[in-house]
């Protein structure tokens, strides 16, 4: 499934807004970005499963036109593009948004055409499904890590390097005590990461093909005819 890269899920949502409304919403987004109003993003921060997310509002004249041969876009609406990277399933993400920051969502999609409001959930789900666009290729530098792993790993590294320099010349008994304090400090950050059961269906297919190729190679090496070759490899 190309929307998934290990623990990360890629969501793409493209929704229309009246052009004059889009101009107003851009001002609203600008206001949200100002430090004095940064509290309005606090709800997003509580959704700790998000790696990175962005909104972009594109007016009809702002679609890139690189050449005279390319027809000019003639659109009635401006479009809001939303791209998010998060951990968990589609339903978990959409429901979390709806439950945790309904007013924030209503602000971020303020008067988008057809926006049903974040609550109740069912119309909101339908709106997202209707306007979602599929990803064709998705890459994560750390498919085995959730956003919380990346954040906790930063804390582990900082605490570990500080501990190492602090305890360099300590007596054994004092070291043991400091070590136990370190574990106490990091207890919420220590965990072993692992692949999700199926990183992605495409990846599972690749692994299956490699397994079949390896088996076929073993059989050829032993002088027997291969039983069945993985079809996709030969294409």
């Amino acid at each position, binding site marked *: 499934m190309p929307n998934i890269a290990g623990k990360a899920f890629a969501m793409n949502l493209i929704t229309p807004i009246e052009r004059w409304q889009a101009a107003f919403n851009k001002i609203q987004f600008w206001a949200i970005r100002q430090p004095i109003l940064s509290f309005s993003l606090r709800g997003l921060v509580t959704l700790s499963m998000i790696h990175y997310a962005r909104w*972009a509002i594109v007016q009809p004249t702002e679609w890139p036109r690189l050449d005279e041969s390319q027809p000019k876009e003639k659109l009635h609406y401006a479009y809001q593009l939303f791209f998010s990277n998060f951990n968990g399933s589609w339903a978990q993400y959409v429901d979390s948004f709806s439950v945790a920051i309904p007013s924030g969502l209503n602000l971020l999609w303020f008067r988008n055409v057809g926006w049903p409001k974040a609550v109740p959930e069912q119309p909101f789900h339908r709106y997202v499904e209707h306007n979602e666009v599929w*990803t064709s290729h998705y890459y994560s530098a750390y498919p*085995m890590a959730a956003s919380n792993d990346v954040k906790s790993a930063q804390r582990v590294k900082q605490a570990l390097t500080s501990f190492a320099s602090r305890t360099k010349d300590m007596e054994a008994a004092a070291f043991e005590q400091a070590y136990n304090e370190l574990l106490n400090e990091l207890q919420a950050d220590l965990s072993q990461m692992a692949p999700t059961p199926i990183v992605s269906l495409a990846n599972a297919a690749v692994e299956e093909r490699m397994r079949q190729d390896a088996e076929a190679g073993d059989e050829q090496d032993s002088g027997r005819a291969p039983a069945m070759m993985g079809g996709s490899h030969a294409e």
Partner: protein
Amino acid sequence: MPNEAGRAYGLTALCPIKHGAEAPQPGKPARSFAARTRDLLQDLNEAAESPMACVPNTYLCRFLVLDNVAYQGDPAKLDRLRSSYLVFVADLHAGKKSEEGLRRYLEGMWEHAEPTVRSLWEHCVGFDTVSSSDAFVRYVKRCQVENTLYFNGSTDEPLAEQLKNLYLKQEFSRFAFEHQGKKGAELQAAFGQFLTRTRPHDLSGPTWKPGARTLDDAVIDPNPPPQYLRSVPTGASR
């Protein structure tokens, strides 16, 4: 600037795809340029490793072909895009000077993944003239749309730092589990060996490989210590 959050940068590029189709090949139907671009993207999913794993400082990225926008039903007006677009969305580490960081990132993309870049953008309007990293940077910037809001729910460190952190988290979690109940001198000696093996300040390795999907192939170390210093296997998998 709305394209960045700290030292993280959100690149959003809409690259128009030419109208028309590739000439039909014997035994294969003609494919529109947009469909062919989508085929190429889907082929990337069949490879053991994404070509974007070679591009420095890519946290996450995605490609898709946008053929059209959704109609919201009566009484909304019907919109139809007049071109398809190759959409490239990347979350990357750009550093404090973000626009300079974006330029470096795109140059790195050209340097480390040029064949992929050339094939994916081959059918895009105006890409015919792109034959160098400078030209590629200019091209993507012409296709870039500005974000209205970029949210960083993760960290904004260089990717090498993030990967080293993840490696250390994994290794230290295992160390803590395996050394439960050990005392004083024994614990201290084991921790010393742990530091020697994991080299926390050395970003070149041992560390996690970008894009690694399994623990068996996650750890890389281009400069492994001598064998006598490696009292514990460097593999992360247990």
